[in-house]
């Protein structure tokens, strides 16, 4: 209880704690919604792949010396997302290799550029915080929060508006095309939303852990819930709760934010596995 008091005190007193919670919870929510779709389309590793591309783009942007790096990072990530996801369901092996190639390549070249053309005094610190997101979320500006809120509103609105179509396109793309639904357009929308969330989420958990944020809540929810709506709602709730708990614990105990959130997600996943094993046995 003492810790809880301390936390509330922090929340009231320090603006960066409020920013962290606002951004953290919103990004967790958006990532979880997308996560269900991506996992079901067998694109679980897209989070990792695209975030490495974003990292590479960031390295290039750092060289050019632009103040607003988003001008380069967002379009490049968007383009890659469209290229990788436009095939719809990831049934071909070619798709899997493409993600791997682009992901590792971007990471390597990004890191090389950052070292050969260092634009800041602390290259390994920058790399560390972008890849692992040690304290990025606790050092946000008000403008970051505003941008995040705008993007989150757009993403959630798009998801609500296109919910039925996203479901149909994820479940059976062939049928959609046959019944006159423009499956390609909706795949494009999904790709664009994914890119936007990943670029944003680099601030939250860093590159390497974005995949976890996208896949763990979805996988946990799928263990227990049996309708698409149930899975989406459960995934959103799990993701937001784990993000909240993760941020709380990392502020109180000085642990890295990204890893703490993912640990919470893993714990929930194991719990849900247990629940599904138990209920499975009861049903029989």
């Amino acid at each position, binding site marked *: 209880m003492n810790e809880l008091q301390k936390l509330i005190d922090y929340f009231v*007193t320090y603006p*960066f704690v409020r920013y962290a919670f606002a951004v953290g919870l919103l990004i967790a929510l958006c990532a979880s919604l997308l996560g269900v779709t991506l996992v079901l389309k067998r694109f679980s590793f897209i989070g990792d792949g695209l975030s490495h591309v974003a990292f590479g783009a960031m390295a290039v942007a750092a060289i050019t010396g632009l103040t607003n790096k988003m001008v380069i990072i967002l379009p490049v990530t968007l383009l890659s997302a469209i290229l990788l996801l436009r095939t719809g369901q990831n049934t071909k092996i070619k798709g899997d290799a493409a993600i791997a190639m682009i992901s590792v390549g971007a990471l390597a070249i990004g890191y090389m550029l950052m070292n050969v053309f260092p634009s800041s005094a602390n290259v390994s610190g920058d790399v560390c915080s972008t890849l692992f997101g*040690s*304290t990025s979320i606790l050092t946000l500006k008000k403008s970051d929060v505003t941008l995040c809120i705008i993007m989150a509103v757009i993403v959630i609105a798009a998801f609500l508006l296109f919910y039925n179509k996203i479901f149909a396109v994820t479940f059976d793309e062939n049928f959609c095309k046959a019944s006159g639904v423009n499956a390609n357009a909706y795949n494009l929308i999904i790709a664009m939303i994914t890119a936007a969330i990943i670029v944003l989420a680099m601030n939250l958990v860093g590159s390497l852990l974005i995949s976890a944020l996208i896949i763990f809540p979805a996988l946990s929810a799928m263990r227990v819930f049996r309708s698409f709506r149930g899975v989406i709602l459960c995934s959103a709730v799990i993701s937001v709760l784990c993000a909240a708990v993760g941020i709380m614990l990392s502020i109180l105990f*000085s642990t890295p934010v990204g890893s703490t959130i993912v640990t919470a997600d893993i714990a929930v996943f194991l719990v849900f596995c247990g629940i599904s094993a138990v209920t499975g046995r009861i049903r029989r």
Partner: protein
Amino acid sequence: MKRNIAAVFSALLLTACGNPAEDSMLDLTALNQTMQYSQVNQMLYEPGSYLGQTVQICGEYYKGNHEPIIRVLDEQACCAAKITIFPADESTFDGIENFSEITVKGVFGTFQSYGVDFCCLNQTERIYVSKTEE
């Protein structure tokens, strides 16, 4: 308890941001490393509301070719926030080695150098803290 939390949250919604206590000194040394680093960062990003406040910080001392600075590192020692410290009098920082840990107290402000605004602590005094070895 719940009513307290609700009151706090609604107050926040109405008044946007609250800020650290303006009357007394802002003692960052009482916070854990992550919090201290983040708060210093916050002050560097948005110095407006902290100007004129007395702040107490613990960090690494460094003097190179420019004014001495204090570096506050995050828990993983991966990133650092730097504040220039102007001494209260000439001899305040004599004999301090680079990268040694010091605690200082000063008035938060800004100064201009080459046309850019930087943050600093004015009239900085050195605080001697007895550290218990863990």
